[in-house]
Structure formats: structure tokens, C-alpha cells
């Protein structure tokens, strides 16, 4: 791990790169150049730090979860509370940084894709703050299961376009955002929401989320006097996981676990890209990908709209192949059980996405035993998921006949 990644061409080992139409090359190079300038410019770094502190509410707390930990083999479990950020998830970290870059590039409009709506809400928020026009592409399936977030985005002044092509989920929202970008690249920045896509986005988004791991590393060391035995995060595209992993990568004693969505199970419909996929090229970079024998993208499935994606960021593929991180498939049922368990033991309702990490922590803790310390990224809060959870657990009056489904 001594050579920094990505290399100048955007490669993390065999993964990453830049597979984009010629019409976008100039725009993507502009993003790379502007970011290179900005990261050495105090006007950028200080403004971002001020926004983190005064707008987002960083540093986010580290909360020990002993009653939850009792179910994780008795391990000490610490939760990194990205759910307490303004807008309710880690997504704001990346969005504020890219919104500042948008202004620096002289562009007046941002577009974004969103799955669960968390990135869309964060983008709509930043667009309001920075006076940018904002269009969010969201798969029609996701607009239905995350209707509250659609309303939030529109309330913030963004245009939300339901995407009706393909599987009508996150992958198709990204396709339509790219189409918009090609046509409007002069005025528009594609505020990409995860650590995937063409170079420099995997690096840029990772760097903007690094603050999660930097804070957590300091916080847990202060609290326990040592580094954790394991860091656990959910992985869809992989931005919150890269953010919390990155500063622990040199700490060889710290195990890194990414939890991806196994949906209804690995033999059925799932989104376990790193477990079941093969390397391929989708949305601008080479990474693991759920694809058939002709390289056609397979439809992913997860109860979590934010993890319902057949690809994954290239650095995760690199961490998998180098063995630095391990990736666990977590089913819908395991995630929903963990969601309810954290709610009832700690009074914290996590997003369904983050619940995959919590379910992973239960397994990892039981494997490592009571002397272990786990750091788990609670990447978002679960308010947006109450309708899904209520239906899953049969908590609504009209769902009475479906009750006990998740019991």
C-alpha cells in the first residue's frame, strides 16, 4: 500500500480509469484541475472547514452502544454518527465540497443522481445555500419508496425528475444524469454522489468524506486509548465506507469490513457486487460489476434504495483484490433486524443502508468476541425509511395481515 492511489490516470491497481465519451473529457479534466488547485488553496479548505463546523455540525459524535454491543458478542461497539449531520447523512460532506468547486468553475447549475434520496437532498440543500440551479434524477421505483425525500428536495427548490428507463433505480438515474451533463456541460457540474464514476470522482468523493475517518480515528483513540479492531461500513457505491476506511488503511491491525446488500439472498435478487460480480466498465470506470456473460448489466435488488446498485467504486475493488478490506453480504432481513435492534437497544433509528453495516457488526463482533472494539459508520438516519420499515414489520393498521413478516 506504499504507492498512493489512484495513479495520475485514475487507476487503483487494475480498477478505475476514465471511460467516458469525448464530449465529457474536457469537463471531467476541468473538475480534476480545479480540485487539484482547490485542495492547496486555503480559501477552499478554510471555507469547507467552516461549513463543516457551522453548517453541518461537525465533528459528528462517536456514540458507544453497549446494549447493542451485547448482541455483537459483547464487543465494544462505537457508532460514528453521520446520521446527526445536517440533512441526515454523510452525503453533505461531499456535496459541500463539490458545490464550492462548482462555484470556483463558474458553473451555475448542478445535477445529481440519487437512490435513497440522501444525496439528492444534500445536493438540493447545497444548491439552495450556494444559489445554484439543481436537477436531481431519481429512479421512478425509488421516488415511490422514498416519497418523503422527493418532497424534501422539491421543498428545497430542486427539480426532481423520475427516471422511467431500465430498472428505474439508481443505475438508470446515473445514466440520465450523464445524458443531461453531455448536453449541458457548459453551465452544469455533475455533482456525483458516490466514490465511483470516471477519474477524478472516486478520489474526489473519497477525499471529501475522509473527514469521517479522521474524526473517528481521533475520537476512538481518545475514548479507548487504542485503535479499533475493526471498522465496519455499508457499501453501495461506497462513499461512506471509503470515507471512514481511508485513514485506517495504513493501520494494518485494523480490519476493514464493507457490508453490501445481499437483498433476498445471493441465490436470488441481490446487489452484492463485490461478492458476486466480475470486473467490467460501467458509469465511467472499471470495477466489479453485476453483469451477464455478454457484459450486459444485471438488475440489482436491495430493500435499501441507496445500496440498490449493480456497480461499486473502484477503490473498493482494489481493497478487495489486495485483501486490505473484506466484504460481507447482508440480506434485507438481516439489515431490517439490525435496524430494529439498534432502535430498541440504543434509541437510534438508522437508515436501512447503515443497518447493513450494523448487521455486519453483529456478525463480526460475535466472531471477534467481547475483547474486541468495533467502529461502525451510521451513515444516515432512518426517518426516510419508516414507511418501508413499518410495512416490513407490519406496524401499520392496514398491513395487519402482513404482520410478523420480519419476526
Amino acid at each position: 500500500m506504499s504507492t498512493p492511489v489512484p495513479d495520475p490516470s485514475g487507476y487503483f491497481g487494475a480498477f478505475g480509469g476514465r471511460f467516458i465519451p469525448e464530449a465529457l473529457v474536457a469537463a471531467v479534466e476541468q473538475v480534476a484541475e480545479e480540485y487539484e488547485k482547490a485542495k492547496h488553496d486555503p480559501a477552499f479548505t478554510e471555507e469547507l472547514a467552516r461549513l463543516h463546523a457551522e453548517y453541518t455540525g461537525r465533528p459528528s459524535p462517536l456514540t458507544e452502544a453497549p446494549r447493542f454491543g451485547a448482541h455483537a458478542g459483547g464487543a465494544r461497539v462505537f457508532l460514528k454518527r453521520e446520521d446527526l449531520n445536517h440533512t441526515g447523512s454523510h452525503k453533505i460532506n461531499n456535496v459541500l465540497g463539490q458545490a464550492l468547486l462548482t462555484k470556483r468553475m463558474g458553473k451555475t447549475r448542478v445535477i445529481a443522481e440519487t437512490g435513497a434520496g440522501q444525496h439528492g437532498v444534500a445536493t438540493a440543500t447545497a444548491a439552495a445555500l450556494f444559489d445554484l440551479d439543481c436537477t436531481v434524477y431519481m429512479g421512478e421505483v425509488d421516488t415511490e419508496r422514498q416519497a418523503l425525500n422527493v418532497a424534501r428536495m422539491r421543498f428545497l427548490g430542486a427539480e426532481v425528475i423520475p427516471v422511467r428507463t431500465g430498472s428505474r433505480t439508481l443505475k438508470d438515474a446515473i445514466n440520465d444524469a450523464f445524458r443531461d451533463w453531455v448536453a449541458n456541460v457548459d453551465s452544469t457540474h455533475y455533482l456525483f454522489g458516490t466514490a465511483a464514476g470516471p477519474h477524478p470522482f472516486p478520489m474526489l468523493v473519497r477525499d471529501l468524506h475522509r473527514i469521517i475517518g479522521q474524526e473517528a480515528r481521533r475520537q476512538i483513540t481518545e475514548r479507548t486509548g487504542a485503535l479499533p479492531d475493526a471498522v465496519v461500513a455499508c457499501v453501495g457505491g461506497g462513499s461512506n465506507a471509503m470515507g471512514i476506511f481511508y485513514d485506517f488503511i495504513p493501520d494494518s491491525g485494523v480490519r476493514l469490513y464493507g457490508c453490501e446488500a445481499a437483498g433476498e439472498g445471493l441465490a436470488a435478487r441481490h446487489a452484492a457486487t463485490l461478492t458476486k460480480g466480475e470486473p467490467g466498465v460501467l458509469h465511467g470506470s472499471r470495477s466489479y460489476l453485476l453483469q451477464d456473460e455478454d457484459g450486459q448489466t444485471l438488475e440489482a435488488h436491495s430493500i435499501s434504495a441507496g445500496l440498490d446498485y449493480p456497480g461499486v467504486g473502484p477503490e473498493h475493488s482494489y481493497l478487495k483484490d489486495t485483501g486490505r478490506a473484506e466484504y460481507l453480504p447482508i440480506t434485507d432481513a438481516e439489515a431490517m433486524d439490525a435496524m430494529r435492534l439498534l432502535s430498541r437497544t440504543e434509541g437510534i433509528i438508522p437508515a436501512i443502508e447503515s443497518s447493513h453495516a450494523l448487521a455486519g457488526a453483529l456478525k463480526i463482533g460475535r466472531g471477534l468476541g467481547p475483547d474486541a472494539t468495533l467502529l461502525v459508520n451510521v451513515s444516515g438516519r432512518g426517518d426516510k425509511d419508516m414507511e418501508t420499515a413499518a410495512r416490513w414489520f407490519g406496524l401499520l393498521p392496514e398491513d395487519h395481515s402482513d404482520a410478523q413478516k420480519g419476526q
Partner: protein
Amino acid sequence: MTAMTEDTTRSTGSVTVLSAALAAAKAEGRAALIGYLPAGFPTFEGGVRALTAMLEGGCDAVEVGLPYSDPVLDGPVIQTADTIALEGGTRTKDVLETIRRVAAGTGKPVLVMSSWNPIDHYGQERFAEGLAAAGGAGAILPELPVEESGEWRAAADARGLGTVFVVAPSSPDARLRIIGRAGSGFVYAASVMGVTGTRTSVGAQAEDLVRRMRAATELPVCVGLGVSDAQQAAEVAAFADGVIVGSAFVKRVLAAPDEDAAVDAVRELAGELAAGVRSSLSGVAE
């Protein structure tokens, strides 16, 4: 990705047929007409018949689209056609077989146009070999930037296949020079910043791009995106070496009541467009 075994023979593709067709059009003092249709659309046989009819009706060359699940550079018309082709069970091998049938049946240049992952996944060497063996003239790979194209070009060059790069109005001259050196067959100039689809006007950007591209290469420069009728074809033919038409052919097939009508409709459109590229000789659009 796939290593060639030592006893694999190399087939020879027909970029020379493509270059000859473009040169012949130039010798007539007109632009070439290049049509596009995805393979397997509306059916496998229907696609072969339609592409053949396009060549018989007046196209100098055709591009056979490889239907893909995530065609990011395509508008709704071509994505609809891709979806129909994929739902009909079209496989990569069927695309190669379509090319073989159309090339053998007409003797005219047949290219493949594809998103990158299907070719990457099939294996670059293996796909190049399959395309050459099918008598293909080359490939248009809009999502493969020149920087990532070395392995493909080596496989294609070794087999007499052209590699057609797409350039955009946003491409700076320095990149046009790199692409002009790397490409073969012709250069595909995207008329506007955007995805495929018919448009009411083809921007002035196209003429400027053709001028800049010509300064950077000896290759013919053909213009695509948005051309849908004879008048637009005539306008583009006045400044480009070739006119590429895709979505308009797809629309004719989608609108046809049955496969026979679809074949007739694309043949008719090819004829209209062929008249268009010739009408610009006198500067009068039909």
C-alpha cells in the same frame, strides 16, 4: 483480457472496403451516407433485412449497434430499440452474425457501434477476431477514450479493422490531433453536445468541428447526431465527408406496422437521404 492461443489465425477485416466507399463518394463530389440500426431490432432476421435494405436503398455504409442495457450516449429512441433487441434475446454473437450476413449480402462496409463493456467483457482480441471474421470494417466505440484504446487498436490494426473515434464540439485542437493520428477509417464528429436523437437543426458547431478536425487528420470526417431528413443531410453534406443517420431509421422501424413495412420504410428513407447528400452538389436541398 483474453490471451490469444498461439495457433489462432487472424482474420482480415475490411477497413479497406470502408475507405474505398468513402473515396468513391468523394470522387463523385458528394458526401457519403452512413446509416445506423441496432442488431436484433426489430428481430434478428428483421434487423438483417433492414440493414441490407438501407445499403440497397442508398447508404454507402452501415453501423450495426450492439444493444446494451445502459446506453448512456443514446436518447430514448435508440434505447427503446436496444431494449426491444435485448428482450428479443439478442446476444453479442448475434451482432457479429448480423454483420456477417449484411456484409456478405451486400459487399458494402459494415461497422459495429458499441458501448465499451460488452466488448471488454467478450475480450478485446476475441471481439476483434470475431468482427474481422464476420467481414466487418471496424468499430465505433464512443465510450472508449483514446487514452484507454491502445489494446483495442492493436487488436484491430492487426486485423485490418478501423477504429472510428467520436469527437465533440468541446474537444480542443490538441486532442483532435491525438485522435486524428490514432483513428482509422474515418472520424465521427458529433454535431452537437448531447445524446443521439433527431433534432430540428444541426448546429453551426458541427461545421466548425469539421473544419478543426480536418486540420488535424487526413481521415474523412463524417457528421452524426441529429440528422433526420434529406434537407438536413444536404446541409451537412455541404461541409462534411459523410452524413450519419441513426435515430431517424430507428423511428421508421418503430412506426412500421410490421417487419415488411419496416424494411420498406428504411429503404425509402435511405433513398431520400441519398438524394439529400447528392443535392448539396448544386447547393439546393430537396
